[in-house]
């Protein structure tokens, strides 16, 4: 049943009476393909755009001639669907609710999807909702004030994060867990394999599945565990779509403990592959603004597009990485905005009067709002009609962010502006940069981001940042180097972490002012870096020679001293090296990968902090591996005034701080601004 101009159904579960039981109704959003100029690559592609008020309701055939539905399940609303196929009209009763129906141990979820092609059906439907329902979809798409969306202290926010699973190949009758996709190899928790760390204060999930091939009688089961006690909490079993890519929403009842999840799939298939993409929503109390960060992405400065012979033309910005933790309000709007700069459009027009230009705005492919722009002059001047499209600022909705994650696009934020050009020769130019600004919960799993048991910040979230970056940018530019580094300061220690996706990266350096440090421990992922046996022997022998040389006097910078330094260096760099240089003005901490190991995707250096009351993180640099050696590479300014507080008063959130810097070496530059 095709529904146009229908009400919002995302986040709802819809059922129709099939004569014997309530049957799930799938929602397939209908695409509109528009020729699109991708700003990041300069390519023209046909892209689908969706208006969430245009969808097809796919329901079992039995519901067309129902024998009168019984009473609605408790908690459900009665909607009616009036269907006209041109020859006759029928009315179908639907049960609609936020919570899915449950049958025995199974949750009968209703899945939704973005259709690839428009489905042609003679059955036109009109949905009637109870009085007082929400306004029709798309009608609420207003423009945001750029300054009005910022997290404040004391606010309760709802960050959205995502979980990362790989693909599982199945054949025959299968019953298997989907593996966790972790660059830091976090796959086994509480002695259970394939456990994904979710975190604390978990609210609900948007679960996306992608079934390649064909599965019959399939189920997807989410098993939730309490990781504090390593105990099973509950599970949610969902009937698996037989094929394709769908998402749904589940709201399990979970305690405020450290949560983990395993995803199990079962069913029958000749051969198939199954993936899961899960977005998790959290509820966090903002005690300190340092718990959040403001991210800002900007487009290239100038842009001029020429096109002709197309009815509609889209200009596509992004996708920009919006990291896990994008903070939303209780109303489902992310703290932030998208600023679209003013553009000038010129149509070659042979008519007497210039038409009005229709401009539509889409965020992540979903319709947001529109405007009509009048021509500068009523009649063409030298056969040109000119339009000055003013700037606008849009709010990002959590729904668009979560569905992006659940449909494998990783929460990237993309904005498209669609111009109705009516086939005329057109030029579109932008006078400024597009800006995406949003507030992010920096540690998306805990209101207090220090593990009170260990006294350390939770390390696991770092890998989700990297996974997130790779997932978002992968389709655009797989060769882009992405680096995320963070400095976490506690009273007694400093923890430096680095995640990246470039195997050629072999070292990094952090420069601080006012920091005094002691010993260190080096981790790759969450494992301490061990010294090989031969390196330990060699280092001890070299140290003994060193002692003999310096027993009578300080080591002179002489040949023996040089040779010894080099030889000691070989053993020290076998598995990984941290060097700390200190002078009166700065402390530089350098890490180099070992020459016997490949480059780890995640590096953590834990350093004892011995002093410094006013510490500032000045800069960060990386090194690259070439011809068997590690060479100094690019230095990045991390924007100074990142002061690491030494205070020991005011509780955990005041005595620890995390500063983040990330760099994407590509045309899509993203800067991170951190609040003081």
């Amino acid at each position, binding site marked *: 049943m095709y529904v146009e101009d229908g009400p919002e159904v995302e986040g709802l579960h819809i059922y129709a009476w099939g004569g014997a039981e309530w049957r799930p109704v799938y929602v397939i959003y209908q695409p509109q393909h528009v020729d699109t100029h991708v700003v990041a690559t300069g390519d023209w592609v046909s892209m689908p755009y969706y208006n969430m008020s245009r969808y097809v309701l796919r329901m079992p055939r039995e519901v067309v001639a129902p024998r009168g539905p019984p009473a609605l399940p408790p908690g459900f609303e009665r909607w009616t669907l009036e269907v006209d196929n041109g020859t006759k009209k029928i009315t179908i009763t639907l049960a609609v609710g936020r919570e899915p129906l449950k049958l025995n141990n199974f949750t009968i979820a209703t899945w939704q999807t973005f259709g690839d092609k428009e489905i042609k059906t003679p059955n036109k439907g009109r949905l009637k909702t109870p009085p007082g329902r929400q306004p029709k979809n798309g009608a609420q798409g207003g423009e945001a004030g750029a300054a009005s969306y910022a997290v404040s202290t004391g606010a309760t926010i709802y960050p959205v994060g995502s979980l990362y699973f790989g693909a599982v190949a199945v054949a025959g009758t299968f019953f298997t867990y989907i593996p966790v996709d972790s660059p830091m190899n976090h796959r086994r928790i509480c002695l259970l394999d394939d456990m994904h760390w979710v975190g604390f204060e978990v609210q609900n999930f948007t679960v996306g599945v992608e079934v390649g091939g064909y599965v019959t009688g399939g189920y997807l089961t989410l098993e939730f565990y309490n990781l504090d006690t390593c105990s099973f909490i509950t599970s949610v079993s969902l009937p698996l779509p037989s094929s394709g890519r769908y998402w749904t929403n589940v709201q399990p009842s979970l305690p405020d403990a450290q949560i983990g999840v395993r995803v199990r799939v079962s069913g029958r298939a000749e051969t198939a592959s199954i993936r899961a993409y899960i977005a998790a929503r959290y509820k966090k109390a903002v005690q300190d603004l340092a718990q959040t960060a403001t991210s800002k992405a900007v487009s290239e400065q100038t842009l001029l597009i020429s096109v002709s012979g197309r009815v509609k033309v889209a200009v596509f910005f992004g996708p920009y990485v919006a990291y896990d933790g994008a903070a939303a309000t209780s109303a489902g709007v992310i703290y932030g905005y998208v600023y679209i700069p003013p553009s000038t459009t010129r149509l070659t027009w042979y008519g007497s009067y210039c038409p009005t230009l229709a401009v539509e705005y889409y965020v992540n492919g979903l319709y947001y709002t529109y405007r009509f722009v009048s021509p500068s002059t009523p009649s063409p001047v030298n056969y040109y009609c000119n339009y000055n499209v003013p700037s606008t600022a849009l709010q990002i909705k959590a729904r668009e962010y979560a569905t992006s994650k659940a449909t494998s696009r990783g929460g990237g934020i993309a904005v498209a502006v669609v111009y109705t050009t009516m086939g005329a020769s057109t030029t579109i130019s932008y006078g400024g940069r597009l800006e995406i600004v949003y507030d992010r919960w920096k540690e998306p799993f805990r209101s207090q981001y220090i593990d009170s048991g260990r006294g350390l910040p939770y390390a696991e979230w770092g890998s989700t940042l990297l996974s997130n970056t790779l997932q978002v940018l992968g389709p655009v530019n797989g060769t882009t180097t992405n680096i995320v580094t963070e400095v976490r300061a506690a009273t007694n220690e400093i923890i430096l972490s680095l995640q990246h996706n470039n195997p050629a990266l072999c*070292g990094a350096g952090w420069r601080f002012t006012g920091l005094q440090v002691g010993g260190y421990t080096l981790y790759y992922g969450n494992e301490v870096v061990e010294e*090989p*046996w*031969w*390196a330990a*022997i*060699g280092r001890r*022998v*070299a140290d003994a*020679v060193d002692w003999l040389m310096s027993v009578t006097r*300080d080591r*002179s*910078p*002489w*040949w*023996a*001293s*040089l*040779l*010894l*330094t*080099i*030889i000691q*260096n*070989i*053993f020290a*760099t*076998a598995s990984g*090296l941290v*060097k700390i240089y200190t002078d009166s003005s700065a402390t530089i901490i*350098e890490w*180099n990968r070992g*020459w*016997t190991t490949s480059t780890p995707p995640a590096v953590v250096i834990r350093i004892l902090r011995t002093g410094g009351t006013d510490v500032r993180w000045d800069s960060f640099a990386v*090194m690259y591996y070439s*011809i*068997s*050696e*590690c*060479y*100094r590479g690019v230095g990045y300014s991390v924007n100074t005034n990142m002061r690491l507080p030494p205070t020991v008063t005011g509780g955990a959130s005041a005595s620890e701080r995390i500063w983040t810097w990330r760099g994407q070496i590509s045309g899509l530059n993203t800067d991170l601004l951190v609040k003081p």
Partner: protein
Amino acid sequence: MVSKLLFFSSTFFLIFLAFSNGVFYPLRAGVFLAGAYLALVGVVFFFHEVPRLKRRMAETLAVVALFSAFYLFPPLSLSAIPAGFFVLFYPLYLGLKHGVFRDVVHIFLWLVLSMALSAVIYWPLPKVFWAEVVAAAVSSLVAHYLLLKTYAQRRRQRGEGVAS
């Protein structure tokens, strides 16, 4: 002439290698040690002719090859320690064998004097690795020169004494 060229070119090469002040993995370490070997051969024979130059070059290449082999079999890197002793002491042995050093005492005095000089030369220099190379090269050459002059003077004095 060859020895002077050897000393200066290898010393400049070492300064270049040390300039990054970075980390030495085996390949760069091997090249550095090979360079140091040539510099030491150059300084020992600075005022003489380098004996069997081709063989010295082969030894230099062998050092680089040995260190490169560490990547293939990492425990082999334990051989870096004897290789270090070879680089330091074999040029001295060659010097003794070919009469540059008069005796073992001469070598011992050269070691002590050049170490002392290096501390003096290094003192005003920036505290970085390339400065250590400069201090080592200059001190070893100056100490060698002073001792050779001293020995020559003593021999002359002794010769004059015998004649009278």
